[in-house]
């Protein structure tokens, strides 16, 4: 696109490679901030959405890949890459003032690669304990258990509240400053890691003034399994089994995304039948996930009956999965080249019976909860998220769409069988809690429409393409986006041509949602915090990976 080429021409220091709609831009470390701010703050086309920051260890150098896209033309992607040779004390400029989402991404890269981002006011580790030794995703990491023994004591609270800032002064000297997260007399309450409504083991430290929230500090990592590290020792067909275990509610969709990435890299032709089946399964997963999200939000507001209603209808989908895939929560269905095995003979009949049933139940759900005066009052005027904020925070999925940000990957780059289905991208403009609530129910309706259109037209043929016994990806970097039920899920695979990936990175849609919570819940009440958490609908294993 000409606008992007003009923009990139303003960066004489950059090396640009174009692959279709993706631009790979490599800039020297010193020019990183200049390049990033040019891409963000220009009048023609602002790259206002930072998908992810991927840390990478090339053996001799450490690097970070900034995946950027513009909300105006979301199908174009710039991968801004920068490398540093310093492995002792690597530093890079922080882009925290350009994108709100950079905050947690930079902490994640710091945690796993030890890169310090200059001027980022919060350079704590994100997932691991503050006293962890070494940076696990570096290739020379020493996994000796004696270095990091299983801790027998609680994590030091002082260390958790200590915010280091690294910066380099004019003489090139490195300085480290420390700040305190909370004042001494602040009333800090722990929500989690064991708490009924954190949707997993999430730890929110909340500073309160009576009932009013002053500050939130999320702590992750309680169920961190190091999936990205594990992937580096797994072969390509083994990896999908880990992906289901990240976001267990939209595992099928994320797994689908990974398979698409590998198929793209292999240039493998997947049959239409597999595409159709995958799409239908994805949409069923989305319905199940939204139903649970709806129920959990109602439960967070104290309406337990609504939760049971959601679970009851979700059960029908689980039954369909059980019959066709063998699994319920973890269907383990997509595989490289197609799907594991063909659909059950009764699959179509059952899905067709489910669609009208779900429509009827949706009406009931609206009667039970949407129209409830207390529920309406609770959601009214709380948790405003503007469109600009949503984009800057990278709050994708229903949350972003409730704020009017059109970010549905199914529409942006229709993958699988979505181009054969006629459906609307649900958008709302207000960005309030009620919008985030009701958009999920509307999306269930749209998903039902997609299913209805595809279920009768599943083409014949093989359900899985033949692949080689040992899959080796060609050398290069591969990137695939899919629309998960909580937001955009990205797979980034860097391959050196072996049967194991060099580096795999999954974008967690839920991490940005917790970051969003940090911004929108301040000033609300305790009850609002819990409700907003429900309305954003994050899943903690997806964050922790």
């Amino acid at each position, binding site marked *: 696109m000409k606008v992007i080429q003009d923009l990139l021409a303003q960066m004489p220091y950059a090396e640009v490679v174009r692959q279709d709609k993706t631009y790979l831009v490599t800039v020297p470390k010193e020019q990183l901030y200049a390049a990033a701010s040019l891409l963000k703050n220009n009048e023609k086309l602002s790259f206002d959405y930072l998908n992810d920051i991927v840390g990478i260890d090339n053996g001799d150098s450490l690097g970070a890949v900034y995946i950027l896209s513009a909300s105006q033309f979301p199908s174009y992607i710039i991968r801004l890459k920068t490398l540093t040779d310093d492995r002792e004390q690597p530093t890079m400029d922080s882009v925290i003032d350009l994108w709100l989402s950079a905050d947690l991404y930079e902490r994640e890269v710091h945690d796993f690669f030890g890169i310090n981002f200059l001027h980022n006011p919060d350079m704590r580790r994100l997932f691991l304990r503050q006293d962890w030794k070494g940076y696990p995703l570096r290739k020379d990491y020493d996994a000796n258990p004696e270095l990091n023994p299983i801790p027998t004591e609680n994590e030091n609270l002082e260390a958790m509240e200590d915010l280091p800032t690294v910066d380099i002064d004019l003489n090139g000297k490195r300085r480290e400053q420390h700040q305190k997260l909370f004042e001494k007399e602040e*009333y800090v*309450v722990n929500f989690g890691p064991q708490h009924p409504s954190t949707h997993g083991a999430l730890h929110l430290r909340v500073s309160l003034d009576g009932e009013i929230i002053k500050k939130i500090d999320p702590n992750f990592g309680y169920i961190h399994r190091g999936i990205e590290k594990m992937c580096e020792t797994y072969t390509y067909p083994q990896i999908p089994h880990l992906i289901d275990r990240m976001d267990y509610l939209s595992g099928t969709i994320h797994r689908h995304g990974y398979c698409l990435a590998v198929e793209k890299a292999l240039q493998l032709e997947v049959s239409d039948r597999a595409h159709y089946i995958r799409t239908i399964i994805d949409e069923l997963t989305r319905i199940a996930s939204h139903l649970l999200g709806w129920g959990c939000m109602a*439960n967070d*507001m104290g309406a337990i*009956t609504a939760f*049971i*209603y959601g679970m009851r209808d979700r059960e029908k989908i689980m039954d369909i999965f059980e019959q066709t895939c063998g699994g319920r929560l973890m269907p383990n269905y997509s595989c490289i080249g197609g799907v594991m095995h063909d659909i059950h003979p009764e699959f179509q009949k059952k899905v067709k019976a489910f669609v009208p049933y779900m429509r009827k139940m949706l009406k009931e759900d609206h009667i039970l909860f949407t129209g409830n005066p207390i529920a309406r*009052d*609770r959601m009214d005027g709380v948790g405003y998220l503007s469109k600009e904020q949503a984009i800057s925070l990278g709050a994708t999925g229903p949350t972003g769409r409730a704020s009017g940000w059109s970010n549905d990957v199914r529409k942006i780059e229709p993958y699988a069988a979505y181009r054969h289905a006629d459906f609307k991208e649900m958008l709302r403009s207000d960005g309030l809690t009620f919008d985030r609530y009701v958009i999920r129910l509307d999306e269930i309706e749209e998903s039902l429409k997609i299913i209805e259109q595809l279920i009768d037209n599943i083409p014949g043929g093989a359900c899985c393409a033949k692949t080689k016994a040992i899959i080796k990806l060609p050398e290069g970097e591969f990137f695939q986006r899919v629309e998960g039920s909580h937001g955009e899920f990205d797979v980034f695979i860097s391959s050196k041509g072996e049967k194991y990936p060099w580096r795999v990175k999954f974008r967690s849609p839920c991490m940005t949602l917790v970051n969003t919570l940090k911004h929108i819940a301040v000033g609300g009440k*305790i009850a609002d915090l819990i409700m907003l958490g429900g309305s954003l609908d994050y899943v903690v294993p997806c964050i922790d990976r």
Partner: protein
Amino acid sequence: MFHLEIITKWLDEFLRTYLLDGWALFIEFVLIGVAILAAYAVLALILIWLERKVCAFFQCRLGPNRVGPFGLLQSVADMIKILLKELIKINKVDPFLFRTAMFLVIIASICTFGALPFDKGIQAVDFNIGVFYLLAVSSLGVVGILIAGWSSNNKYTLIGAMRSGAQLISYELSCGLALMTIVMLSGSLQLSEIVAQQSYAWNIFRGGIPAIIALIIYLIAGHAETNRGPFDLPEAESELTAGYHTEYSGIQFGFFYLAEYLNMFIIAAIASTLFLGGWMPFHIPGWAGFNAVMDLIPPVIWFFGKTFACIFLALWVRWTMPRLRIDQLLNLEWKILMPLSLINIILMALWIIYV
């Protein structure tokens, strides 16, 4: 009408024929105490079973159905379990207050329970200031809750206790004012007297519109007094884990649990006594035949029937509505219910004078 009075009268005469008056009284006191405690415990078990069944009904589930027929023995099994559980000793609590708190809550609840007129002659104490007594004693419970939250030395319990303090003290006002409307109508504070006056028309029929408004206000405010959803802010499971009783275990928690269920019963029982005729059967003036048929149903059944109807209402609300936020809760009381009950008192005065 078959009153249980016969039994109590007979017992009284029987004891007096064989014993000195003082001794007879002493034995009667003990018997009453035992009877109240037993009824308290049994009712709690029934209520817990009922709640679980009704809740299951609203949620399209079956509810307990394994222990005994229809799961009737489930709550007995639960009671045995809770009695056997360890009382966890918690560091850094205020031990004296921590162990006192639940007794305050349960004493307040039992004291109120004792004054209820179940039937003619089945009422432990019949004060001439009965309504006043009920209001005074039932409001003692909040002290126990505040102490429980404070002494646990936990941030959740403290927030829960503070919420509870704000909530119970506010809603007591509407509760009291709603009962005052009925006191105006009957001109008496004595519960037996109030029930006796309703032999031909229950107070909601006698009091007309103001009485109906008062009943609705009382049911809302009373429901809030019991700390149950949608007014379960002090416990607020999804926010404060278990609110003021987070740190309690075993039977210590059991006491709070008992008190919660019995408070629900007490609120329903007061509503049925003051508004729905207590143990009085449903009579229509002039319809002698109909009234005679109604009289065949024992008054105790009338009393429990009305009470359980109110309880069902409370359960229905609890399992349908989401929880209020603290500011909405206080708005509802101070900006809607309280002014409304004050106006209602004037309405009732006009009703009494002109109708």
